[in-house]
């Protein structure tokens, strides 16, 4: 690869001859991402600003489709021997990327080798913990992070004289009221059915989703979410689905329009939904913390993150890594983090940026933008709430969603559905364990 680049550069230099401009020395850094709309603009601006700030490196961002599409494109490119330098991978792809020793360059190592100043302590541990080894070595660079929040249509709640619910029983009660008063098709709903109702639910109540600290401590992890709490929660959803006090809105975020259109007045989904809510909602809204079951001791714990991180791919030259390292330092800059936070609604990843946004009074006008940060830092994370690292996670989620759908459709009981999710999921985890690089 490097040699070929050199050859091409040399040939080019010869043809251009003495008129060679300094532009020839520029090293290109390919950055593949999955951001659309306003967030795509943020990416382009970041790259442009970086390119303007120095003259040795040029970051070239390329949109590669959805999160899974981007990851697949990166994997395919790696197999073909021309992976990008930086690849944006969603949080559920973390285990797959981690297992690919040799295909990726751990961020902490790259920063060290490039001689960039880098202190993991400057970053919010609730966010970086997800992408670090158990020793605290940062493997990938968190780029856009979010968490689950409960979006509330304040106008509709006012109409039924309801307060913002704090616990699940209160949510059910308010949803019932909404359902009986003008919302017959949806009392409340949620996107990302497994993220909200299994993954976050478990962390928020400090119960394990899987053994070995949800997989963070090893690939030989086993799923454990067919436990009383999760079963009870799903049973409740199944019961409420019957008259649409709860109404299922699909596996991903395709149902989010039901909140902004006013159909569902309570909607649990990512905090990154903010951009769309702000642009489309014609009512007063806010984002409340996720509800919890008050009979669970110690609840609420802390939430886990969603979103994506930047992985540096392996097999590049030292010079290229130097550029990538400089770019990551550039992204970590406090003002830049505050900018990303404000422009996209994604969370700041450094403590300094969070403090600065707070000091600027940013959350006074828009308290809902602090909700996910408060959730993430609610308590010191435990084994059950540090994060998840399960192989084949994308497909695991599909399998779990399939089973939940069957429960909601009344074809299985909640317990049967979760038992089957665990059993089928474990088979897939063992499959992943077999292929993972040891």
């Amino acid at each position, binding site marked *: 690869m490097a040699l070929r680049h050199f050859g091409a550069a040399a040939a080019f230099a010869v043809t251009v001859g003495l008129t060679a401009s300094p532009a020839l020395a520029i090293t290109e850094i390919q950055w593949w991402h999955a951001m659309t709309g306003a967030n795509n603009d943020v990416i382009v601006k970041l790259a442009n600003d970086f390119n303007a700030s120095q003259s040795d490196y040029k970051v070239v961002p390329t949109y590669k489709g959805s999160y899974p599409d981007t990851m697949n494109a990166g994997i395919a490119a790696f197999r073909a021997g021309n992976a990008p330098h930086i690849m944006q991978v969603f949080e559920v792809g973390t285990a797959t990327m981690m297992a690919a020793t040799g295909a990726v360059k751990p961020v902490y190592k790259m920063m060290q080798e490039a001689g960039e100043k880098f202190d993991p302590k400057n970053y919010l541990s609730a966010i970086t913990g997800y992408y670090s080894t158990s020793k605290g070595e940062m493997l990938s660079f968190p780029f856009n992070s979010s968490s689950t929040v409960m979006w509330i249509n304040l106008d509709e709640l006012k109409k039924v004289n309801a307060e913002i619910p704090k616990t699940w029983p209160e949510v059910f009660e308010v949803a019932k009221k909404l359902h009986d008063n003008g919302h017959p098709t949806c009392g409340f709903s949620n996107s990302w059915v497994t993220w909200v109702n299994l993954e976050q639910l478990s962390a928020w109540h400090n119960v394990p989703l899987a053994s070995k600290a949800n997989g963070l401590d090893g690939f030989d992890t086993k799923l454990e979410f067919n436990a009383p709490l999760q079963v009870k929660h799903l049973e409740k959803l199944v019961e409420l689905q019957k008259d649409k006090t709860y109404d299922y809105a699909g596996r991903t975020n395709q149902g989010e329009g*039901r909140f902004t259109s006013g159909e569902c007045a309570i909607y649990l989904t990512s905090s990154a939904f903010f951009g769309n809510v702000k642009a489309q909602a014609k009512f007063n809204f806010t984002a409340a913390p996720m509800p919890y079951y008050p009979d669970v001791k110690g609840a609420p714990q802390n939430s886990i993150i969603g979103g994506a991180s930047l992985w540096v791919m392996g097999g590049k030259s030292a010079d290229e890594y130097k550029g990538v390292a400089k770019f990551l330092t550039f992204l970590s800059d406090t003002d830049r983090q505050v900018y990303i936070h404000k422009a996209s609604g994604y969370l700041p990843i450094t403590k300094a940026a969070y403090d600065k946004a707070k000091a600027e009074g940013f959350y006074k006008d828009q308290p809902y933008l602090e909700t996910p940060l408060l959730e993430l830092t609610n308590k010191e994370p435990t084994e059950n709430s540090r994060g998840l690292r399960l192989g*084949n996670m994308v497909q695991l989620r599909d399998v779990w969603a399939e089973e939940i759908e069957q429960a909601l459709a009344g074809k299985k009981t909640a317990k049967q559905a979760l038992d089957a999710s665990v059993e089928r999921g474990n088979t897939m985890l063992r499959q992943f364990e077999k*292929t993972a690089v040891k």
Partner: protein
Amino acid sequence: MQKQPIFRSKLLPYALVAPQLAIVLIFFYWPALQAVIQSFLLQDAFGLSTSFVWFENYVELFSEPAYFETIVRTFFFSFAIAASSLSVALLLAVMADKPLRGGAIYRTLLIWPYAVAPPVVGVLWVFMLHPSLGVLSRYLRAAGIEWNPLLDGDQAATLVILAAAWKQISYNFLFFLAGLAAIPKSVLEAAAIDGARPMRRFWTVTFPLLSPTIFFLLVVNIVYAFFDTFGIIDTMTRGGPGKSTETLVYKVYNDGLIGGNLGSSAAQSVILMIMVIVLTGIQFRFVERKVTY
């Protein structure tokens, strides 16, 4: 009579076939061979660790009850799609074949949907029948039907079959129309003189004479339902709810690209390939004999 050599040079015929052969070799045989090889391997998504496992991928596949369910489902989908699109297309073709005022307009409009790409078809139907956005679902609900293909597997399956069949109607219609035009008018007139009513004329004269077209379309439709419905399923249901719209092709994609399990995905492709070869073989060998030309 002795055949005259058309080509003077012996090499020319080969040279003329070469581009076609090259395409078949590069785009069919080579990937097929790779799939066969991959199906014997256990490999991580990045291709960093590879081990040869003989038939383990196949054994695992067949020890999975869900795989059989997917096979049965795929066949059901194929026959449902083929039967509905063929019968509707035949009906439309027979109607459009009659001397009508503005017949050309009807025919053009009926052929139109064929130009629509499968994912677009999926999106169209999703919008019409989405439980909360869809226009049609509003009528269905008004009619007292609890319409929710996001949760109800049978409804989701109906939706996919409907969309897939709708798209294929144009293609079938076109061939049926051509087939009908090729039926000699004299035969039909003779039957009419003998006193056969239109229905009888259709079943005893038109239908048998159309059988080569029907046979050809049956093969094409089943292959279409096996493979080309991927775009429709992906945009409409992604195989859900549950597994109620996951066909064999969708499972290949899901396990290989989403799940990163390339070995199993390759094994499934190989099985799929064998199935289609056998299917086509049977049809050409046995069904063809019963077709009256």
